[in-house]
């Protein structure tokens, strides 16, 4: 079976599109997850999407809606229980353990196929239906819109919360908004790579991007590109074999991270040498005229 033939099949097209949609959202929120130290929150909401999905399966035979509702509830609980990072992490631990217990209980009541459960945990990219694709598209649009509108104040609040608050940025409100966006993204991603492997799209690409640049927009761009390459690249690779797509997606993602870690220091050294070449002239100017441009502005 050739790749060309496969790519004409609806299930393969759905899979590629779903992976790309999920990857864009994940790549977009990734830098904030890393900056705000929320890797554990991603893991927590992803695993609790499993509980929500199990509840959805049981009540309405619809895991996606259950997972969506569950993850938003969890985001609210996390925000309620913990505002500082350390407090938040223990709150997530507490909610996560209890929530998973309930998930196992709910699954025990479910009379359907056991594969529905493993699909939630490890993803089932080739089973994406047309309606699921629409759900993913809506989630992606919401995430992109929210991030597009609040990107700058959210970045300010993530990097320098005290100064942001003094400037009138609603730091706490943005924290809650981000948690909801994160929960939606993670739930969407869980359909593709599974709840256990969400971190490979929501953290790894952003962590790799941060190794290569310190410009916020460049990091965001690289993070999205890396996530899409990992998701669709891993998917294309899996078309050629019997191994689950998640395996390739996490592998490609990890490979990108390793390459970024190795090349990051080299890039940094090169930039430092460039600055050293520029520096002498600039420093002389500083010493003789402390603030030439600035003094002129007022004088």
């Amino acid at each position, binding site marked *: 079976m050739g790749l060309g033939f496969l790519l004409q099949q609806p299930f393969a097209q759905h899979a590629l599109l779903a992976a790309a949609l999920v990857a864009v959202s994940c790549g977009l929120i990734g830098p904030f997850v890393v900056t705000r130290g929320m890797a554990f929150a991603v893991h927590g909401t992803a695993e609790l999407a499993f509980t929500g999905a199990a509840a959805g399966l049981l009540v309405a035979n619809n895991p996606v809606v259950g997972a969506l509702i569950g993850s938003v509830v969890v985001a609210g609980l996390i925000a309620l229980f913990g505002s500082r990072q350390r407090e938040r992490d223990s709150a997530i631990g507490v909610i996560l353990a209890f929530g998973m217990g309930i998930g196992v209980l709910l699954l025990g009541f479910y009379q359907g196929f056991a594969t529905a459960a493993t699909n939630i945990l490890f993803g089932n990219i080739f089973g994406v239906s047309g309606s699921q694709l629409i759900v993913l598209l809506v989630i992606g649009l919401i995430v992109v819109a929210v991030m597009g509108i609040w990107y700058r104040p959210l970045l300010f609040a993530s*990097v320098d919360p005290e100064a942001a608050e003094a400037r009138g940025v609603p730091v706490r409100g943005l924290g809650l908004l981000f948690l909801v966006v994160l929960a939606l993204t993670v739930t969407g991603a869980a359909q593709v790579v599974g709840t256990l492997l969400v971190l490979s799209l929501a953290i790894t690409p952003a962590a790799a991007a941060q190794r290569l640049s*310190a410009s916020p927009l460049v990091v965001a761009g690289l993070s999205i590109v890396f996530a899409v390459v990992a998701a669709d690249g891993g998917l294309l690779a899996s078309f050629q074999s019997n191994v689950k797509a998640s395996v390739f997606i996490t592998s490609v993602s990890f490979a990108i991270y390793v390459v970024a870690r190795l090349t990051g220091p080299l890039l940094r050294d090169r930039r430092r040498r460039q600055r050293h070449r520029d520096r002498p002239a600039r420093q002389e100017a500083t010493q003789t005229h402390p603030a030439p441009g600035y003094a002129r502005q007022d004088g």
Partner: protein
Amino acid sequence: MNGSGGSAIALRGATVRFGDHVIWEKLDLDVAPGRCLAILGPNGAGKSTLLKVLLGLLPLSAGTITIDGRPPGHGSAEAGYVAQQRVFDPDLPIRGRDLVQFGVDGQRLGLPRTRARQVDPVIEAVGAQSYADVPIGLLSGGQQQRLRIAQALAGGPRLLLCDEPLLSLDPAAQEEIVAVIDRHRREHGTTVVHVTHEITPIADVVDQVLYVAAGRWAAGSPDTVLTTQNLSALYGTHIDVIRVHDHIVIVGGDSTGGCTHPDNNGSAGQVRDRHDGHAGHLAEGHQH
């Protein structure tokens, strides 16, 4: 406004209490434009609370406050804020210039962008142009603090509020930061407020002192406020204020050691001691 005309900061009978707990009360204060005020006192005396009031983030329980004759706005453009030095993570995907840009438009919606035209003048004013493009987490504490000041100045504020801007900096860096802020004050007529544990590093530039301790306060010029008699009355225990050359040494009246205010020319080892601050010890002595 009656009695506060022309003041950059005017407080009348200002009181903050949380429930029954009075932080400070009936505070009267006038700071003329372009002057430098130091707010001194032990930990927990309400220095940061006052700063929040000045920023418009916290309402008074009683009394009035005006900044340039107007009530302080929530994150109002006329107040620049230099937060306490907090070490940035080395991996943080942000450069000095991005941090400064937040001072111009950080609260606005949309995608971040850096406009050299808007931030280069302030970056030059604090002497940070040679490292403005380096990831902020890789800079020294003093360099990071200069960029925080540039951020606070970027909005062209008429009032600059500095919350312990010298904390955890070595003496040379402290001196530089004080000079950067004071030069801006003289050139632009900006009113400056320093919240600090210790007055020695800023003693040369301070016009006015507000000392808060144990719910009480004293205000005036450094020489009139920082006296044995005044501080003893504030703390309710005997406090010695000794002047040695340019340095003001405040010594607690109880027998606990470490209450002295180490000399400003101290070694790095002594600098570490100074973080605890003399005043914190004094307050503890008072409570026991």
